[in-house]
């Protein structure tokens, strides 16, 4: 039942927010964010990582003739993702506290609906339910960007929506195919995992699924919707999109691709790794010449998630664990990074790098926070970026050494564009004719301090997170290895 609560809680909160007077909106939203964190922590307290069993499982038959049931439950990986989701959502809610948006209740309600749908994705144990939640998450995002985005958002949102939807439809095709592949139709995770699928069919299904995920993540060259969308979306939505939504796709690779079509991953995974690795270098180089800070972070995000994808597709313990760790790290870091752009925008109305300078003089605390977040993002040691990145690169190196070299050079570039932009924005002299950016207000600190603490904590004690997901990752890798070995022995 707890799983159901975790899904429903945001939806119910959204409904309450819509029905309550608007002066309670912000308080209710924050309360909802805290509430989901609480529920996740309760779930985590009940979880024995060594057993790696799914907890709080719930299986209600829904459409019997199609073999669809409302089957949800959590294991270690889901728990980590839920933790991320509830943290990032709370942060997203907090980041918008400073904004003066129209139709505020609707805005928060949509944010929470998005969270609820994404939580649903993380706990679904039935492919069909999973798909419903997957698409449901897209709809609030569409309206949020359309209604509260910057500038001309119509074309951007249409592109974002259609592009990702197109990918998802291929996945739907794959889902229906998978569901009807067995003797009787069934979408339950156990049914799907037990299917024995021929090599060719695995390839087709792999391609269908990966097409959807490659767009959602996004992997080069399917990334072009991302910078525009991230740039134009309101910051809270950008945070939700890059903090959680793209993690849905990476999570789905772990949950629905690797155990389901292992042979295809074994044989064709390397092409996606190649694309992801090329994307790291490519996106980093592009980030180097960006003039808009938010866009720069958007491209940086492509580079980061490319590495995560590449590492996970190696299907080694280190790679998958590193990927999970790095998803968490990336989710936390984007909160900070995009919130920085919001603060800058608040005072100057733009995110052009050249418009800023000397912020350290007037807002030293802000500069300090920015610095820590930046170092987290470029994976400096003892920040959350490092353990994951090290593990990912290591896994990649042990499988494809040359790709690891390329990926690692992208990491150097990461330092270049981050440092250069930091110094242009934060250091130097204040541009003529303005008083600079004032010091942070309390809400800003409320956002930054948890982020900073998470960055440092996850950098020092990554083992704590890895312990949660450890058993579940083992299970999935065992499934994968067993099937691949069986095939190879034949």
């Amino acid at each position, binding site marked *: 039942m707890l799983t159901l609560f975790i899904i429903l809680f945001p939806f119910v909160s959204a409904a309450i927010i819509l029905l309550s007077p608007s002066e309670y909106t912000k308080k209710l939203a924050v309360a909802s964010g805290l509430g989901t964190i609480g529920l996740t922590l309760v779930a985590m307290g009940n979880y024995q990582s060594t057993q790696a069993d799914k907890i709080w499982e719930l299986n209600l038959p829904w459409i019997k003739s199609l073999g669809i049931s409302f089957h949800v439950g959590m294991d270690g990986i889901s728990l980590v993702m839920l933790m991320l989701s509830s943290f990032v959502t709370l942060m997203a809610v907090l980041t918008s506290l400073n904004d003066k948006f129209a139709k505020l209740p609707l805005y928060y309600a949509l944010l929470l609906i998005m969270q609820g749908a994404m939580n649903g994705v993380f706990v679904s144990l039935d492919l069909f339910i999973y798909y419903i939640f997957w698409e449901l998450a897209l709809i609030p995002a569409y309206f949020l960007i359309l209604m509260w985005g910057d500038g001309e958002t119509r074309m951007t949102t249409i*592109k974002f929506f*259609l*592009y990702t939807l197109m990918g998802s439809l291929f996945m739907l095709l794959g889902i229906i195919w998978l569901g009807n592949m067995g003797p009787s139709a069934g979408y339950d995770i156990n049914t799907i995992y037990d299917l024995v699928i021929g090599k060719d069919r695995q390839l087709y299904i792999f391609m269908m699924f990966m097409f959807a995920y490659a767009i959602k993540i996004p992997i080069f*060259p399917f*990334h*072009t*919707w991302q910078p525009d969308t991230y740039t134009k979306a309101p910051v809270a939505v950008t945070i939700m999109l890059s903090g959680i939504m793209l993690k849905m796709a990476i999570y789905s690779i772990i949950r629905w691709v690797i155990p389901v079509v292992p042979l295809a991953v074994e044989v064709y995974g390397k092409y996606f790794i190649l694309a992801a690795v090329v994307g790291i270098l*490519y996106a980093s*180089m*592009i980030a*180097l*010449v*960006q003039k808009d800070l938010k866009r720069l972070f958007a491209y940086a995000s492509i580079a980061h998630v490319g590495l995560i994808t590449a590492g996970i597709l190696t299907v*080694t*313990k*280190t790679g998958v*664990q590193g990927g999970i760790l790095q998803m968490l790290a990336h989710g936390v870091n984007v909160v900070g990074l995009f919130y920085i752009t919001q603060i800058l925008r608040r005072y100057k109305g733009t995110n052009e790098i050249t418009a800023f300078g*000397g912020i*350290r*003089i007037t807002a*030293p605390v802000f500069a*300090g926070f920015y610095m820590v977040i930046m*170092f987290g993002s470029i994976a*400096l*040691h*003892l920040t959350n970026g*490092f*353990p994951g990145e*090290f*593990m990912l*690169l*290591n896994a990649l*190196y*042990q499988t494809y*050494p040359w790709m*690891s*070299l390329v990926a*690692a*050079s992208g*990491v*150097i570039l990461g*330092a*270049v564009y981050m*440092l*250069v932009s930091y*110094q*242009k924005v*934060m*250091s*130097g*002299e204040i541009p003529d004719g303005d008083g600079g950016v004032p010091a942070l207000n309390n809400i800003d600190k409320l956002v930054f301090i948890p982020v900073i603490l998470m960055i440092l904590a996850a950098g*020092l*004690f*990554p*083992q704590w997170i*890895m312990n949660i997901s*450890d058993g579940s990752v083992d299970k999935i890798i065992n499934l994968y290895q067993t099937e691949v070995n069986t095939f190879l022995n034949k």
Partner: protein
Amino acid sequence: MENNILQLITILIPGLPLLGFILHYIFNDKISEKISGMHATLWVFLAFILSCTVFYSIGDKGQIQTHLFSWINTGDLNIPMAFIIDQLSSIMMLLITGVGSLIHIYSIGYMHGDKGFNRFFAYLNLFIFFMLLLVMADNYVLMFVGWEGVGLCSWLLIGFWYQNQEYNKAANKAFIMNRIGDLAMIIAMFLIFNQFGTLIIQDVISEATVPGSLHIHLGGITLLLFIAATGKSAQIPLFTWLPDAMAGPTPVSALIHAATMVTAGIYLIIRNNVLFSMTPDTMTVIMVTGIVTAIFAGSIAVKQNDIKKILAYSTVSQLGLMFFALGLGAYAAAFFHLITHAFFKALLFLGAGSIIHGLHGEQDIRKMGGLHRYMKTTHWVYFIGLLAIMAVPPFSGFFSKDGILIAAYHKSPLLWGLGLASGMLTVFYMMRSYLLVFHGDSRVEKDTMKHIHESPPVMTVPLILLSVLALLGGIINLPHIFHGNTWLQHYLTPILTEGSIHADIALEYILMGISVSAVALVSYFAYRIYIVKGAVPSENNETQGFLSQLLSSRYYVDEIYQAVIVQPFYKISAFFYNILDLKIIDGAVNGLGKLSFFISGHAKETQNGNISYYLFAMALGMGGILFLFLLF
């Protein structure tokens, strides 16, 4: 001492500077300058005291291992947060905390009145923490933490006066060049993990020395580690950041860019000397790189006019000499030079800092001269540092450099000659800077002249202490011919692979005689030029000859890097963004959308609103359906 007390101490040694940093960070603007400087120094000094106790117990224990907690442990990857202290790291710890304390004290005077005083000390403490982490690390990853951490502090401190964008650029350059080295190091780690299945340094070394074991990628590992070292220790081709790094405050240059951080590369190689000794090819590469860098940087230093730049190139050159020694397999000699160099180069930098302080920020030696009259203490300590770096007996530099030269001679007389040449270059540029700064006529600008003063005791006392060290540092590895017992070499024996060199005593005397007379000769030559002739470097570079212009432009290395690497890279990036990303890839995506718009735009014309047209369409449609029924 009890083992667990020692372990506690080993945790405290890096812990105290870290505590200092955290306290600074929390109480940044709430504490006064005095308290800030005092307590920052106190932490480092306490760490020094603790390091001494550790140093004494190493003698009987051999090594101390401390396991804090498991940092990353998944699958077959196991990286603990653990320290190991042996002979090598204990000396490094003494060096770091010792020189560090002196520089902390000095900084209290030097940074007095600076807006970022507290911040400066926070960074210095952080630096000490990371540097200690580097030398104490039990595994490569933790070492890498320190390795990048000191790079981070270097970045913070070079760009300390952040309002100047030139300084920021220098900081970024340093960090990025270091990161290139870091890339090599991280790949070396992957390769080590691939070959040995572990990243614990001791396990790797014991694995590598198992008789009969064959590790085909060992050459690659050592080469990559060496590339990492070139980044950190500013060797060709990654040396250009170090002179630019002089943008930071002078104590930083002394601590980070002379005494400690830049020697991390040498430390890394000595730490892995077992692996290096097994790969002679890499050793040759190291040797060649080292000596080329030594001569190259030395020749550039000859034509520099910024006192800190001269010292920076001198540092590059001296580091080159250390790598030269490493390449020869003379690890102990290299380490010995590392220690003495830390003393005298820190002394020289701090002396230069004292001059700059006295002249209110003037760094150009053309605008100095005759300063020995105004800054007596500074002059004397600088003079001692000068003698030490020029390798005048019995100053510390003489013994350490001599060790290297003798090792070179045993390899080949030619190498000895090259080493001597680099030493002569050192003598020349150091004499040049010394004479132009302290002797001859004063060329100081009048405004500055009025305020010229000797530095306060808080600065001069550390200088005096350092000059004592620079004078007597040679004792720790006094060669046999001076009735010494080469203590350092013996002390390091457990971790070194080199065999001791038994040289002919007569030959050693001859070689020493030659090098000493070379020093004297070159000093006289410099004296002739700068005192007797009173030559002062011209303001204008264009009147110079080709060679000197080449030298004063530093062989145009920066410009070449800009033109060959940086600019094309940015151009390609811009191409990727403007053409490939926006036009081609995004164009393809948008093209798909436009295509459907195009098709529907034309398909729309079938809906022209004309009813008879629709009727036709209906009739044809019915006919078509009928036709299909007929067919199937």
